[in-house]
């Protein structure tokens, strides 16, 4: 297969991205977002789940859960390049919603060849929100690392950790170990035996929880992947998940750049806008350079996923690494270059700072991605000579 030189970013992708930009400008402006999620600075706020459900219904009306679902299953069947454009806008607005969790789960389900997976994808296209429950207590999402067990009869016990937006979704896609290997199970959040325990987190624009499962019986038609096939499905979806997270970070970093540049154009000290001073100007340019590198790698990764699956993992890890580094740098500079006001609760930059810090580490930070890339590109340690 060949890769289109324009990444395959077509008119449909452009319309999706433009629509997202407008919707979020109208309904999730920085002022609206701050009023919504930062009304209180009380420490107890850390375990709250605050989001605009009316905005989510608008997203559903626009079919945003359907974009990545194949057309045969009632979705729009759009490429990851188009999804990346959409998620960039979500990141730019730092919008709280179960969209990113649902998109990640969509790619996992799409990598599973089963009637249960196809049924789940149809429901996602119709508006169901889903989150992955595949991470263990130590924060590992590697296939074999799992604190949930499945009996041969499909009864789940244990705890899934670091579940994103758990209190916004209807279904959890739970990874569980059994004697036959790792499987994936669709579990309703209100099913008997399921307890969602909120984590207190720093990021105000999402919620996170660990999910306790006690004797949760999953019927056969909800087994998305039979025990033994889960690892393959998760590995196939991982490039898409990394790319989606990179898109959120690139979009958020662009907001950080534009907002900080605007401040440097207007804030006057020593009789000049502070952007005059190279100690301010040059870091702003470095933010831009890092964002652009990450953004180009983002679309390269998405295009590879769509057109050249063999190159998808390397592309996605490069994008996640560059985006995590850009997110880290832009977050730090966005606060520092705003000066004293940037350090306050009332200034908007902390919302993006916190979202970026959360994104940076999800599914592996920059150094993790580079270590995995090194294994592929240089060979494993001890086997390289």
């Amino acid at each position, binding site marked *: 297969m*060949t*890769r*289109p*030189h*324009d*990444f395959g*970013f077509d008119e449909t*992708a*452009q319309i999706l991205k433009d629509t997202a930009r407008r919707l979020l400008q109208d309904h999730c402006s920085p002022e609206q977002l701050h009023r919504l999620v930062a009304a209180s600075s009380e420490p107890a706020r850390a375990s709250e789940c605050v989001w605009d459900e009316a905005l989510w219904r608008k997203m559903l009306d626009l079919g945003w859960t359907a974009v990545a679902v194949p057309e045969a299953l009632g979705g729009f069947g759009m490429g990851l390049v188009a999804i990346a454009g959409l998620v960039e806008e979500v990141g730019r607005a730092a919008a709280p919603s179960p969209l990113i969790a649902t998109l990640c789960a969509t790619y996992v389900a799409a990598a599973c060849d089963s009637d249960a997976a196809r049924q789940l994808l149809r429901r996602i296209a119709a508006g169901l929100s889903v989150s992955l429950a595949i991470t263990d207590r130590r924060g590992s999402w590697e296939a074999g690392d799992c604190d949930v067990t499945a009996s041969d009869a499909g009864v789940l016990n244990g705890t899934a950790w670091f579940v994103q937006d758990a209190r916004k979704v209807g279904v959890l896609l739970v990874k569980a170990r059994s004697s036959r290997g790792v499987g994936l199970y669709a579990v309703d959040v209100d099913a008997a035996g399921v307890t969602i325990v909120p984590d207190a987190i720093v990021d105000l624009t999402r919620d996170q929880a660990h999910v306790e499962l006690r004797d949760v019986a999953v019927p056969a038609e909800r087994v998305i992947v039979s025990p033994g096939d889960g690892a393959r499905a998760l590995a196939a979806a991982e490039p898409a998940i990394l790319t989606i997270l990179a898109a959120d970070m690139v979009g958020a970093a662009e907001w950080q*750049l534009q907002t900080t*540049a605007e401040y*440097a*154009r207007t804030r006057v000290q020593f009789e*000049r*806008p502070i*952007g*005059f*001073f*190279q100690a*301010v*100007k*040059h870091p*702003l*340019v*470095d933010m*831009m*350079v890092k964002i*652009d*590198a*990450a*953004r*180009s*790698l983002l*679309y*390269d990764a998405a295009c590879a996923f769509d057109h*050249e699956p063999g*190159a998808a993992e390397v592309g996605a890890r*490069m994008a996640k*690494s*560059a985006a995590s580094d850009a997110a880290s740098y832009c977050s730090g500079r966005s606060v520092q270059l705003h000066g004293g006001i940037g350090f306050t609760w009332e200034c908007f930059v902390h919302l993006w700072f916190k979202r970026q810090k959360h994104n940076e580490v999800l599914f592996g930070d920059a*150094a993790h991605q*580079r*270590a995995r*890339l*090194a294994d592929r*590109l*240089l*060979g494993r*340690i*001890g086997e*390289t*000579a």
Partner: protein
Amino acid sequence: MTESAHSESPEQAAYRAHCKAWLAGNLPPRPSFRLPLGPLEIATEEQLEYLCAWQKAAYSAGLVGCDYPGEYGGGGLRDCQRIANHELKAAGAPFFPNIVGLGMAAPTIVHHGTEAQKRRLLPPLLAAEEIWCQGFSEPGAGSDLANVQTFAERDGEGWRVRGHKVWTTLAHFATWMILLCRTDRGRKYEGMTYFVAPVRAGVGKGLTIRPLVKMTGELGFNEVLFDDYPIGDDLRLDEVGRGWQVAMTTLLHERGAGSLVTPSSGGGVGDDNAATLGASGLVELAKRCHRAGKPASDDPRLRDAIVEMLIRERAFAQNERRAAVRALTDHPLRLPLQHKLTLSELLQDTARLACEIEGAAATLHQTDAHAPAAGRWPHAYMNSYGFTIAAGSNEVQRNILGERVLGLAKSK
């Protein structure tokens, strides 16, 4: 990995096929002598002759200046030079020696020259029959280019030039120079005028070339001294006092942000080529070098650093790709104006990391028989500073990006 001709017009597709076919049978044989790493390092007449013959052959086949109008020696095509560049690079072709001519003088002449100037100057430039050099920088006008003091004074129908230009690459081989002069000492930006000046023909007649020795010990740069050097008014480009605007056209193209794509081969010269000196070269180097008795490629910190360079190298290539996709670029100059900044820092950091990987062997000069990779990396590391400083130092590049793309207040 291949990239499809997705959005190419029939003209472009046919042109790509022509480039591929011609390159398949017409790359020059490797010379018996060592070729320089890039146009800035051309040191001998035989190197120059070999490379000029190659540019002329590629020009005759339509691969150089194909987007220039036919009446000025070009191919009369539209948006095809980037295709030729891609195919030249893919074929591992040698670089074109007339780098100042192709990248700076030609687009400036197209935008600001008279009909007669275009017809006279462009065809031999594209064919590498006449080599060009750049007379912009002076001892007191480097990053602050608008401070040029070389003065052109009216002398009857023509001009007489007095002053001192520095860092003049290729001057010792050049037929022509693009020359930025002051013509009014009372005004800074409006007090400059742009000329094209004969170089070779003027030696000993008021023009003196003195070679500068670089930190590597190599030649390549020159000083050019003007002592009442006469220039005809027919060699003035654009109006008197418009020199700064003309120079901006030159610099925009030099920085890869101009409207005309510079003919470029990507600069492959056999085993000295850019790929060897790119980040991918680090992987093989790390497997051959040792650190604490183990392959350097087993060192976790070096592994991280190498992969980071591979990521930056890929990001640079993907920036180039994205720059052509209008829907995925915000400000039209945002990516083009980063080109020189990111590429020069990528090459510098890659070379520095290579020296670190080599360990003790990085002490060896390229003349030492035991130097790994023929001593290219420490040499490339030193030369990399030419790139981060030249063509507007990267500090100035950051000012330009901050001001033109982010709208920040001008530092000056």
